[in-house]
């Protein structure tokens, strides 16, 4: 009908700013990155050489491996700790529970530069705890290097745990009291209940949260930058130095690494879904 077509033009026009902004600053850059990853360094030819460079370089492959390992470990530790902590929170009544959740909310915001900085002053080479423990003769921190693999995992875990707690605690309310009671009457101990019923029911939520934590860690830049600068081989730091540093820029190589990073994140998510359906056949 003519009337509705005319009526629709005006609102469509109002959406123009949105369309332009999304095209220019969300979708456009993604496409530009993908396009750039298939170009040679001078931008002249269409080629796969950027990807070849990545996979043939021990350095970049190591970077990918480091990022994946650190993300896997920190996400894994965080989700397990968060499950226990979230369960404990749900055992408290209203007010206490809300306050605990508020604390989790606030500490999940403590990330990036400030977080790394805090850890540096506590556990860095001249850090408070480092010196304190040394003075007291405690060896536990003697071999510890904050600016290493373990240090990164430690700092990542700090902000991932509260985030995971917030994402995962609602799932505990999906576990019905009657299930526990029925299981108990059928002879199950607490352990058996969690193993056969509790954990499987929590699994979708936990798996989804793990995906988010992993992706979050893979893409983390500020925290790593403040902690180790360019002294550690991480894919997010590599990308940054290839596209935005003062040293020799190779934006197309950076694009290739960017595409790889995004691909790893997507692949993990899909793998996660697949494994979940294996475990919970009732969700198909």
């Amino acid at each position: 009908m003519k009337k509705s077509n005319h009526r629709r033009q005006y609102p469509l026009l109002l959406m123009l700013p949105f369309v332009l902004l999304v095209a220019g600053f969300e979708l456009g850059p993604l496409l530009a990155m993908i396009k750039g990853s298939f170009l040679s360094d001078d931008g002249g030819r269409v080629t796969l050489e950027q990807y070849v460079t990545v996979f043939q370089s021990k350095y970049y492959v190591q970077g990918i491996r480091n990022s994946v390992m650190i993300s896997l470990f920190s996400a894994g530790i965080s989700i397990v700790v968060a499950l226990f902590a979230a369960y404990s929170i749900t055992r408290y009544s209203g007010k206490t529970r809300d306050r605990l959740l508020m604390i989790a909310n606030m500490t999940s915001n403590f990330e990036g530069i400030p977080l790394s900085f805090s850890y540096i002053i506590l556990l860095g080479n001249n850090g408070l705890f480092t010196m304190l423990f040394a003075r007291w003769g405690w060896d536990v921190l003697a071999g510890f290097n904050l600016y290493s693999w373990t240090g990164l995992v430690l700092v990542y875990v700090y902000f991932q745990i509260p985030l995971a707690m917030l994402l995962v605690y609602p799932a505990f309310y999906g576990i019905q009291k009657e299930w526990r009671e029925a299981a108990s009457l059928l002879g199950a101990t607490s352990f058996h209940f969690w193993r056969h019923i509790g954990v499987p029911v929590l699994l979708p939520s936990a798996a989804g949260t793990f995906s988010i934590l992993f992706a979050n860690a893979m893409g983390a830049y500020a925290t790593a930058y403040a902690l180790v600068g360019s002294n550690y081989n991480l894919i997010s730091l590599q990308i940054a130095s290839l596209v935005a540093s003062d040293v020799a820029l190779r934006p197309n190589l950076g694009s290739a690494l960017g595409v790889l990073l995004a691909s790893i994140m997507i692949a993990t998510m899909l793998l996660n879904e697949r494994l979940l359906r294996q475990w919970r056949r009732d969700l198909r």
Partner: protein
Amino acid sequence: MNFVAVEQIQKSFGQQTVLDRVSLQLKKGEFATLLGQSGCGKSTLLRAIAGLVDVDGGRIFIDGREITHEEPRKRKVGMVFQSYALFPNMTVEENIAFGLKMKKDRDAESKVRRMIELVHLNGKEKAYPHQLSGGQQQRVALARSLVVEPKVLLLDEPLGALDAKIRHNLQNELKRIQRELMMTTVFVTHDREEAMRLSDTVHIMHEGRIVQSGAPQDVYASPRNAFVAEFIGNYNVMSAEQFARMAGGEVPSASQVAIRPEVICMEPSEAEPQPPGDAWSFRGKVCDITMMGNVLRYEVTTDGPNLLVDQLHRNQAMLPPGTPVRLSVARSELILYP
């Protein structure tokens, strides 16, 4: 010898007493029902027997053994919940087998198969709970509790969430299975018809106490007090003064009178009444009539209180509102409360 014995159970939640020195006995194979309104304590008593609630005082025995403070999983008691409580991540088979798995029973497979047959769920072994109807889920819950051969089966308003037709069918199924297995059963409901259909013994509960126990027909015909009378049926309950006004005579030594609606004879007053000997006879007027299928329920005004009168729906014409009637009640049918 009592198979299940509950002695002087006491339970309070904060200031509120929920169970007040309740005692109960069941013989082996008996189907007992706890009947009462919401909040009377029947579910709490059931859960106390199951061990899901800790009692403040009293003792509980099953098959001669005291289980008052034992963990639920050691009591050999089965329970079916109103919300079914089926484990969502397991198939019908796996749900039923769960208890056997906990016992590491080697015979599990055949036992599960037999149980599925017993509850008529053939063909649904591999289904998940969310794929089943309410009635089917409840049958799985029943099978799951029975397959581990508990000493006592507890049912907490298990049919409350189902609609009428399915509820009816399951009631029959339940009775059949209970008879076949000779399972000692405690059933909780607020539905008096359900209680009377299914039970060997009915225990009426009110405010944390058992106010009357007995076979359904006995409790129905001889309610011990006005509360039971009003709860168990549509009894006409009135004070002695009201009765005197209505029937024109004093009732010796009673403060309240209860009369079942089906024992009141009623005829239009044009007809010459032949009241049976030894009966109270008085007049009234039809004020309302409800057709309940096979029963006609009249509400009749009298010189005393309004009466409910039930008559079997035979070929006689329904008496319209406004009809003057003559009513009579045999003296033996009056239930007197001191």
